[in-house]
Every structure is written in structure tokens, then in C-alpha cells.
């Protein structure tokens, strides 16, 4: 994500950087330990990281935790075919894809 795409709140808020750092640490240290396997194309931590970068800590964290709650083996059945990629994972862009 480029600097321009990020929200103003995300740029000035030090907590945004702290939470992005936390996510990064989780990905490096913990993710492997639990053998995380997400039905989404972007893993929960990656999605949360990008959402915080894009929308700031509050909205970003909310979006991130919402995906974490939706991470169940049956989640894929909620999505139409066009929202599933060739690997069978749910396409979950940060921005809602109007196109």
C-alpha cells in the first residue's frame, strides 16, 4: 500500500504503527507455531495489517477482528463463485471491489 492510499489518521497515529508492528511480529513468530490456515486469500493478520494501514487503527482493527471471527471452515459457502479464487480461497480485498 502506498503512502498516498493511507488515511490521514493512520499516518499520524503512533498506535497504527504499533499495531502494524504487532501484526508483523505475529506473522513472523506465532503464525507458524499454530499452523494457521485461513479460508481467505489474505490471511487474517495480513488483512488486519492492511486495513489498519488503509483506514487507521480503529476501523482497521474492527475489520481485522471481523474477519478473524468469520474464519470458519464453512465460510466459503457464503460467497458466490466469482468471489473465490482458483485456489479455492475467498477473495478479500481491503477496498470493497465495486468493479
Amino acid at each position, binding site marked *: 500500500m502506498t503512502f498516498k492510499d493511507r488515511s490521514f489518521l493512520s499516518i499520524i497515529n503512533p498506535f497504527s504503527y504499533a499495531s502494524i508492528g504487532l501484526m508483523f511480529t505475529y506473522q513472523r*513468530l*506465532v503464525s*507458524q*507455531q*499454530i*499452523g494457521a490456515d485461513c479460508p481467505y486469500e489474505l490471511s487474517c493478520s495480513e488483512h488486519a495489517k492492511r486495513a489498519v494501514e488503509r483506514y487507521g487503527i480503529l476501523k482497521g482493527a474492527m475489520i481485522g477482528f471481523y474477519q478473524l471471527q468469520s474464519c470458519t471452515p464453512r465460510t466459503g459457502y457464503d460467497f458466490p463463485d466469482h468471489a473465490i479464487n482458483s485456489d479455492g480461497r475467498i477473495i478479500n480485498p481491503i477496498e470493497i471491489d465495486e468493479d
Partner: protein
Amino acid sequence: MKSLIISLLICICTSSAFGQAGYEASMLELEQKIFSEENDSLRNELCLKKFNLSLMNFDARRSFFEMKRVNDNLISNISQKNNFLWNASLVSKLNGDFEYANIYFDQYLEATNDSNTNCLILGFLIKNENDTSILNAFERQIPQDSSLACLNCLNAVKGFKMKRKGAYVKVSYLFPGLGTMMTGDFYNGIGSILTVSGSGVGMYYLISNNMYYGSAIWGYLLFWRFYTGNVRLAKTKVNNLEQKKKALLADDCQQQIKALLKNNQIDFRLNK
């Protein structure tokens, strides 16, 4: 005036010839001929020409495509047919389609009984990518040649399996993190020890404070995930280690084959 008209006509006719200079234009010209040709064997001849042209231009992907259009049964000239079979097996191999390569190579061998070293090397390289039984059958067919002995390394690479792989996993069940550490990944091994023991201590703290629900829930959400995750991690790491060792062996084998290929070059055989 007559000469003017003739020169004009010549210009019109030759303009297309000048425009068709170059590989793409030649390919198109051949395709146009194929399109308008009604005789099957002549059509096949043109397809073969197109295949050879793409080979001469090192267009491997297109050669593979053109190869499939050629019917080798319709090639009347024996030497042309043999060359086609050889080239087809080589092109298929270069494109990673080893089943096709094997079929064409077997046909070539059947037709020529070629026992040249470069032919045997190509056979080894193709059959190595197919079933082990196919490779073994081929090995039995060829004469024992000392210069080809190094090709046995292909078999060794193919059959390579790390010993006592299960032990790493079993150890991880008993002592979380140890299996991962045994694969040489101390960093993640220590990570496993810390996460499993940390979540275990947390569970114990909750139980000792009579918070049984919390203990059960956190136990499932964290301890159980870390514990099973550690076993999965050990499995992944041991598989990675096996691949790494296999790659080292394959590298060594590749060096030997490269040295062999220096003296026995495998090349396309194009009709003059």
C-alpha cells in the same frame, strides 16, 4: 507501356514476398499453405516444415504446439521421420511433458535402435521423470557402459528418502519444539517451547485460581493450537530438510550430467 504494366505486376507480386521476410511471416506463409492444402500427406509435410522452422528459431513452446499437429505415420521419408521423433522427444522434454517425450523416444528407439551415448543420455533424462519402473526397464535394456555409470545418480536422487522422518514428529509430541530443533531450526524450536509452555502455564494459573471455564477455553484456543501446531511445524520442517538434502544431491548429479553432456551434446536434428 507494356513494360510498365509488367513491372507494376512484378512489384505487386513481390511486395508480399518482401513483407514475409522474417520468422513470423514465414510461419504465417506456411500456415496459409497448410490451410489451402487438401492432400493429407502434403499438409503433414507442411506441418513438419513449420515444426522444423520453429525449432530453428529456438521457439520451444511453439515447437511443442506444432509437434502435436504432425502425424509421424504420414512421414514417408525414414530419415525425416526418425529426426522428427528425436526432435519431438527433445522438445517435449524441454516443455516438461515427459509422457509425450517418453512415447516419442520409445518410437525413436524402436525405429533406429540407436545406441549412441547422447541417445542413451536423453533416454535416461526422459525416463527419470517418469515412473521408476520405466527407468529400471530402460536401464536393463542398455549395455553396461562405464561412461554412463554416473547417470545412476538420477536413480539415487529419485529414490532419496530421509531416514527416521517419523522420529522428528514423535519427539515433537513428547517434547514440543524438539523435533523442529532437530531439523536445525533452533529459532522456531525455541518459539514452540515458549508458546506451548507459556500457554500451559497460563492454563495452570487459571485452574489454580478456580477459573475452569477460562482454562478450558484458553486451553482450546491457545494451548491445543500451539501444541498441534508444533507437531505440524516439525512435519513441515522435516519435509523441507528432506527437500534440501535431495536438492543438494540433485545439484551434484546435475554437475556430473553436465560434464557428460559436454562430450556428448544433445541437439536437434534438422533436415537439410
